């Protein structure tokens, strides 16, 4: 990129988020805020059974109900194309927007009622009579793996949607000749609970389909609508507006995002559907339901020379785009964590069951494997008589190892893996001492070390998106700046981030920059927000666009100032001659020339001041190489979590006393925003560790469909939280930036489980499963006679 002081680098800018005044004073605009004249409301009829053949859906009574405009079934929408099955080596599910011949989970959409208002739509929805022939239910992963299991997809030989079978005789030999430590670890089904549920409003405007939806990926939604409805993309506009949380659940494209536009297109009237919370429990993606059989081969010095795992993921019915198998691939690929284990192998089986499809949730497969691996390390330490802290210390990636390639091909360019851990150990020891007097029960300390992939090439796991991101910068005639991007923010401060990038990379004041997001008519095609990528890829794209735009500004300003373009720099909104700051012109004067006095432009200069940059990240693989290695992300942030807990042995109640997140995301463009990301992530991690679970009975009926039973942690459940930033720049990303969107959630279950076991270390209790509940701890203690428990607390 060409010179100019302002483009040399980025500096931290801890300003308050520019979106907050709007969001915190009720001025945000969410899907439910969209009100259109003549708008109709939709309600979905959802399957009450987990697995059934659809014999018929009788809509006569519903059609005759008051205020009903239309009732459509899957058969009525048979001209809507199935969602594309894009991932190779994954069995196709041919998902339909409305089910046609089969329902595979409770909540699957059977029909939709459109009425004058939601009450009438709900009243009529109750009158839709679905004749369902019950089929045997595959209720869990064991049932799905059993020989002769009932099939969810009749043309599949079994219920495995994905099955990998890596072969490595050398690795097998290592396990035959070494001490092997084994464990089976389970994480429960739980998921994102954004404050704003999903919702879609669609209307036809001047022959075009206009769709508001609460999504992280507006352009991808547009593409899917175009493919399923057979409309050209340029006749569809998707607007995301403000999004009240997504956490991964809104990077999927859902049936309602196709059905509501299809209804608006047919009826030529605005149609609205707002997901209620019960629907969110039934019809938005679930996540994290995995079981890992892990093994470590340990040599005579106590070093781990290899790890291998047999990972099973229950992806529910599998009817989701992009496919729910993707996080499980990340689990498998993260099996060595930040540790120098020379060899590894992960066998992955994803099975379909009669439950809500699972998909993405903050951490994307990483919390599951970190929980399993960190618990296995504790077991290795115990079975080989080592100090678990020392065991970790000896195996963590050291500065001299970098860049380091993991056995399965992750190329870790940078990081502070050992330093982060040492800081956590120091904190934990002093914090344990400080808090010991306040403990009512037994106090314990736990750690988790991990790396978090940043900016994935999502094609490898989803078959859909690769990794590009595009930004457009425009200087308006008055010198103000617009930056437009296809990112799909969901509350994480993306507007502030983009304004900061544009401001610093162009050399204009922050408040002179306006940000356009979440509207496919206003933004260049982008892949949206996911995978801790937004800041990194936006920086790449804005850097390219700013370079191009600056070149033009310099040419015009040089012409005005009678100086060489190469001697012009843009500082604080003024173009000036390097070394002669009194010779300058404002950006408005440059823009005036570019737009109005175009006859005064230097010869050969096009009018206008606009440039687009599209960033494709280098060095990231989109499929495994011949050795099965895959570098899936542009860089890898590292983190260590530690926590101090107080366990009441009489009741099994765990009190979190303090939690630490040491986090290294390279250059922090806005440390306040990163802090917010980590705090929110830790709260969600606590939910997964202790509270949240989506349970089903043997018939596949969900047992948890409201916040009465799904326990999201509130402020009282989140302990004193310390965030300690390290800052090791990446060598592979623009400006050394790394991502921070997911890492907060990832280490929490492992750290809490380790701390609880530490508190109860005299009992030898070995937690292998989340959530850790009072019942599960008491059950373990009852099974482990211990003299200290008999007195109560």
């Amino acid at each position, binding site marked *: 990129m060409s010179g100019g002081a302002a483009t040399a680098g980025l500096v931290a800018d801890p300003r308050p988020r520019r979106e907050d005044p709007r969001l915190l004073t009720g001025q945000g605009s969410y899907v439910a805020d969209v009100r259109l004249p003549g708008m109709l409301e939709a309600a979905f009829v959802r399957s009450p059974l987990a697995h059934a053949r659809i014999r018929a859906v009788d809509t006569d009574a519903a059609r005759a109900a008051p205020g009903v405009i239309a009732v459509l079934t899957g058969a009525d929408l048979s001209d809507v194309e199935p969602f594309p099955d894009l991932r190779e080596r994954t069995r196709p599910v041919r998902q339909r927007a409305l089910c046609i011949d089969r329902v595979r989970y409770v909540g699957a959409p059977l029909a939709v009622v459109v009425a004058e208002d939601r*009450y009438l739509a709900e009243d009529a929805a109750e009158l839709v009579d679905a004749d369902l022939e019950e089929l045997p239910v595959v209720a869990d992963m064991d049932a799905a793996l059993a020989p002769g299991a009932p099939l969810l997809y009749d043309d599949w030989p079994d219920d495995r949607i994905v099955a990998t079978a890596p072969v490595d005789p050398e690795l097998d030999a290592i396990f035959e000749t070494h001490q092997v430590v084994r464990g089976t670890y389970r994480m429960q089904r739980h998921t994102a609970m954004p404050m704003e549920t999903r919702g879609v409003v669609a209307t036809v405007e001047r022959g075009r389909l206009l769709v508001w939806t609460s999504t992280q990926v507006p352009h991808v939604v547009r593409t899917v609508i175009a493919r399923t409805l057979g409309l050209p993309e340029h006749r569809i506009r998707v607007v995301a507006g403000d999004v009240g949380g997504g956490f991964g659940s809104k990077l999927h494209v859902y049936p309602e995002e196709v059905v509501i536009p299809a209804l608006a297109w047919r009826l030529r009237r605005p149609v609205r559907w707002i997901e209620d919370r019960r629907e969110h429990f039934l019809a938005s993606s679930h996540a994290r339901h995995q079981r890992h059989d892990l093994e470590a081969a340990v040599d005579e010095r106590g070093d781990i020379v290899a790890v291998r795992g047999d990972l099973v993921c229950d992806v529910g019915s599998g009817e989701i785009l992009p496919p729910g198998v993707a996080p499980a691939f990340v689990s498998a690929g993260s099996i060595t964590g930040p540790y120098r284990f020379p060899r590894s192998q992960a066998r992955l089986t994803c099975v379909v069951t009669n439950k809500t499809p699972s998909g993405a949730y903050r951490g994307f497969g990483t919390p599951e494997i970190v929980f399993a691996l960190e618990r296995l390390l504790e077991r290795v330490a115990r079975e080989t008589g080592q100090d678990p802290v020392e065991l970790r210390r000896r195996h963590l990636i050291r500065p001299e190892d970098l860049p380091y390639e993991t056995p399965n091909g992750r190329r870790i360019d940078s990081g502070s893996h050992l330093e982060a851990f040492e800081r956590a150990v120091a904190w934990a020891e002093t914090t344990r001492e400080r808090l010991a007097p306040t403990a009512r029960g037994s106090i314990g300390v736990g750690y988790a070390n991990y790396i978090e992939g940043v900016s994935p090439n999502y094609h490898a796991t989803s078959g859909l998106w690769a990794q590009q991101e595009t930004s457009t910068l425009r200087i308006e005639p008055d010198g103000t700046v617009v930056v437009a991007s296809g990112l799909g923010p969901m509350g994480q401060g993306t507007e502030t981030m983009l304004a900061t990038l544009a401001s610093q990379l162009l050399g204009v004041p922050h408040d002179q920059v306006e940000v356009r997001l979440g509207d496919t008519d206003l933004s260049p095609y982008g892949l949206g927000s996911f995978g801790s990528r937004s800041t990194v890829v936006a920086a790449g794209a804005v850097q390219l666009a700013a370079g191009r735009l600056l070149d033009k500004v310099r040419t015009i300003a040089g012409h005005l100032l009678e100086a060489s373009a190469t001697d012009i720099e843009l500082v604080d909104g003024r173009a000036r001659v390097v070394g002669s700051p009194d010779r300058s012109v404002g950006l408005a004067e440059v823009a005036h020339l570019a737009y109005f006095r175009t006859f005064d432009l230097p010869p050969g200069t096009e009018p206008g001041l606009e440039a687009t940059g599209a960033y494709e990240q280098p060095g990231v693989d989109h499929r495994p190489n011949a050795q099965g290695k895959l570098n899936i992300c542009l860089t890898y942030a590292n983190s260590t979590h530690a926590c101090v807990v107080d366990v009441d042995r*009489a009741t099994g109640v765990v009190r979190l006393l303090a939690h630490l997140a040491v986090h290294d995301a390279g250059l922090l463009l806005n440390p306040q925003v990163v802090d917010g990301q980590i705090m929110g992530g830790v709260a969600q991690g606590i939910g997964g560790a202790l509270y949240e679970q989506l349970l089903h009975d043997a018939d596949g009926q969900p047992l*948890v469909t409201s916040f009465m039973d799904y326990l999201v942690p509130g402020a009282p*459940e989140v302990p004193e939280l310390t965030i300690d930033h390290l800052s090791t720049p990446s060598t592979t990303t623009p400006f050394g930036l790394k991502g921070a969107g997911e890492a907060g959630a990832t280490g929490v279950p492992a750290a809490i489980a380790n701390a609880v076991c530490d508190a109860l270390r005299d009992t030898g209790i070995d937690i292998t499963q989340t959530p850790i*509940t009072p*019942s599960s701890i*008491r*059950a373990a203690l009852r099974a482990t006679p211990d003299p200290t428990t008999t007195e*109560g607390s």
Partner: protein
Amino acid sequence: MRCGGRAARPAWTGCWWGEDVVKPAPFRYLRPTSLDEALDALATLGDEAKPIAGGQSLVPMLNFRLARPGVLIDLGRIPALTGVHRTDGSLRIGAMTRQRVLELDQDIADRLPVLRAALRHVGHVQIRTRGTIGGSLAHADAAAELPALALALDATVEVASVAGTRTVAAADLFLGPWTTCLAPDELLTRVDVPLAWQRAAIVELARRHGDFALAGVVGARRPATTDDAGIRLVGFGVGWTPVRLTEAEAALAAGGSAEVVADAAAAGIDPIDDIHADAAWRRDGLRALVTRIADQLGVAA
């Protein structure tokens, strides 16, 4: 304002969140302004009607369409049902008195501090601001604090119908989960709480702050009489109703050790299994809580 498209739809059901998607099945809505008017309506409508107090349990059930009353009778505009009448020996609390009002009442805090302590466990401030004491008792959730407190403190409730009024002891009120001895045409109008208790305390364990109890205990103590040792221990969240732990009371009165009392309590319940705690845990939890409360009552080691 467009709140449902049908005139019979009460304005407020659709409008708590603006004009949004709160969506019970159709019902008629009455808002009497006197007790007689309410009782007349109940007498006429019987099973078809459902009284609504603070709505903190009923409204979610309406919106899930699990409760589908034909007529909702809103008790919120009946002045006679609100307020606290104080005598030397008791508090007479109108059924529609908001929990938050009782929580903030300094006189009650001085004379019956366990009531404030119990209310602090009831949901969150927003819930207590709408929730009423009578609504909680009539709803009869086995894991709720106020029914257990009423039972432990020998409270009585006044029940009215067009036929007249009767007084029901808390011990006779709770028949089963969400079930009381009230007939469909009867209304719980008042709670009388005796102030004879020298000490009373409440402890509970919930998954999160503000949740229903996984297990809880109310303990109370007053001077013994010839036929009453003056000790009450009531468990909640551990059965289908709040449960008098009579054997534990006896053990406590006999000066039994905390462990003996706790074992007696755990033996005296038939706890339920649910997704938040299993039955074995509920015994363990109750045992731990009884140990604590015995301590607070100052009658056991």
